[in-house]
């Protein structure tokens, strides 16, 4: 049954009178619905669609992790955990940061386990923003930062990044956007949707701006493990930045655990304590089954993860080279699992291109403008899809281009 028919039937089954609009808070009314959602509804109405529109791995959570979750359920591990999360998990996270980035976080006070990275981001904004505070958000970026800042009473100040600069934000751009009200900067590299990564020296320049202007950084590094050339630089590993940053990370992308909702924040004590205060009242703790899976992932998950990363890397090269060959200019993404080709040469807008591609060739991609104005003229193509589907989708895109 098609989506529209289903919703029409629902309206018949559950007739209702709408509530007055005023019951919804003004701040919430002012937030536009996610552009992805609109596209999602379109896709649902069609059959035989190959989707490159997905922001999650195509791998199922590795079996040993699922097995650990199941075993914990069998043992009856179903109660609340500490608000901070299981101590064992926090210790493992703390060890990771020490070993991989040389940063020390006390598992007892500097690590907070959350229900996905999205919650961690929301907590960080709410914990640091006073009404009217400005937060610098480089775009294109993940769709939730701007609304989360607004909902926390802050004002998102977006800064565009460009393909010419490989979608990196520069210290100079940040410096120009700083006002008296600026409180924080959001960094999210490797980046969704562009696949851009920051080099160490780019980050060091930004760190200087942060210190000079007494700011704090929220660095969403959930794609950190998916870095294809060289190692990921954790922002808090830069000199002086441990006390000026909250690092967000999680298991969704690195261990294919999206639906289990498991993320965490590491940072300095006063902010982590403040975030925990909100988390304690709003969420209490992250789901214990997911936390048990997280323990297994950090203990024994490296091998499976490396295997997934190698596979993404191969698909990345395949997709980027094919897109460039068919004339869609695509810069080489060095992280995450997205390619961000330009469709400007076709004369179509992102949305026109994506909508026609879906209707005429049944390939779903996400129009780049969904991730910020400067994403206009681009598409987000996820290569977290099997090689066979990728090859088919690419040949359909080529057929679509030929038909223009």
């Amino acid at each position, binding site marked *: 049954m098609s989506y529209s028919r289903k919703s029409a039937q629902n309206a018949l089954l559950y007739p209702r009178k709408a509530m007055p609009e005023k019951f919804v808070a003004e701040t919430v009314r002012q937030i536009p619905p*996610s552009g*992805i959602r609109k*596209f*999602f509804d379109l*896709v*649902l109405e069609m059959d035989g*669609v190959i*989707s490159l*529109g*997905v*922001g*999650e791995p*195509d*791998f*199922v959570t590795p079996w040993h992790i699922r097995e650990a979750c199941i075993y914990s359920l069998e043992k009856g591990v179903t109660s609340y955990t500490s608000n901070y999360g299981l101590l064992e998990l926090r210790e493992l996270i703390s060890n990771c940061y020490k070993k991989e980035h040389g940063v020390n976080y006390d598992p007892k006070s500097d690590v907070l386990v959350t229900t996905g990275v999205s919650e961690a981001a929301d907590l960080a904004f709410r914990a640091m923003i006073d009404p009217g505070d400005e937060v610098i958000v480089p775009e294109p970026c*993940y*769709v*939730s930062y701007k609304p989360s800042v607004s909902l926390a009473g802050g004002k998102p100040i977006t800064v565009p990044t460009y393909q010419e600069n490989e979608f990196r934000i520069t210290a100079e751009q940040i410096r120009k956007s700083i006002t008296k009200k600026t409180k924080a900067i959001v960094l999210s590299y490797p980046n*969704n949707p562009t696949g851009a990564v920051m080099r160490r020296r780019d980050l060091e320049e930004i760190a200087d701006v942060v210190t000079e202007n007494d700011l704090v950084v929220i660095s969403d590094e959930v794609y950190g493990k998916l870095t294809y050339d060289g190692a990921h630089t954790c922002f808090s590993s830069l000199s002086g930045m441990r006390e000026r940053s909250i690092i967000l990370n999680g298991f969704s992308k690195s261990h294919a655990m999206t639906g289990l909702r498991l993320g965490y924040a590491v940072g300095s004590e006063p902010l982590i304590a403040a975030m925990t205060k909100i988390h304690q009242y709003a969420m209490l703790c992250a789901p214990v089954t997911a936390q048990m899976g997280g323990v297994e992932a950090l203990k024994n998950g490296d091998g499976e993860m490396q295997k997934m990363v*190698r596979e993404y890397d*191969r*698909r990345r*090269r*395949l997709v980027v*080279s*094919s897109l460039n060959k068919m004339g869609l200019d695509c810069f080489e993404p060095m992280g995450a699992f997205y390619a961000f080709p330009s469709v400007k040469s076709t004369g179509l807008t992102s949305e026109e291109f994506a909508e026609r591609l879906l209707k005429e060739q049944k390939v*779903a991609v*996400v129009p780049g403008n969904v991730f910020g104005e400067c994403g206009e003229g681009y598409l987000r193509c996820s290569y977290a899809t099997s*090689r066979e589907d990728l090859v088919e989708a690419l040949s359909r895109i080529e057929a679509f281009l030929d038909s223009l």
Partner: protein
Amino acid sequence: MKEILEILESNPRIEPGEIATMIGITEAEAASKIKQLEKKGIIRKYKTVIDWEKAGEEYVYAMIEIKVALRSRTGYDAIAERIAKFPEVRSVRLISGGHDLSLTVRGRSMKEVAFFVAEKIATLEQVQGTVTHFVLRTYKEDGDVLFEKERSERLAVSP
């Protein structure tokens, strides 16, 4: 090199050009590396996994455990190599535990397999005894699951 092998192991029909793109070398380099791997015998052969049952062809498989009495001065290799010569025998392995050799035998019917074991294997001088286990269903073969693959029910578009 390991990368090329991993890719070919998962799908031998991927062209050298595509492999080259995937791992960031030129097509000529990929082709010559594959040639080398074939020449050295690291790539033994390219095979296809077939669901014969679906194709309407009945085959019966059995695992045979064999207890071997070694004759003086010949090891397991001699008897194993001899058994391996039968085309009915699909695999021969020396194993630890209660038995010595483990075979997989394929035939058109249970009777055919049973007779083959009784006439050709059990009668060998070094074979002390055999135990035949008929395969009822194969769930996973050489790393490939043969039942419906797990499909994650992902939404078609997500942030």
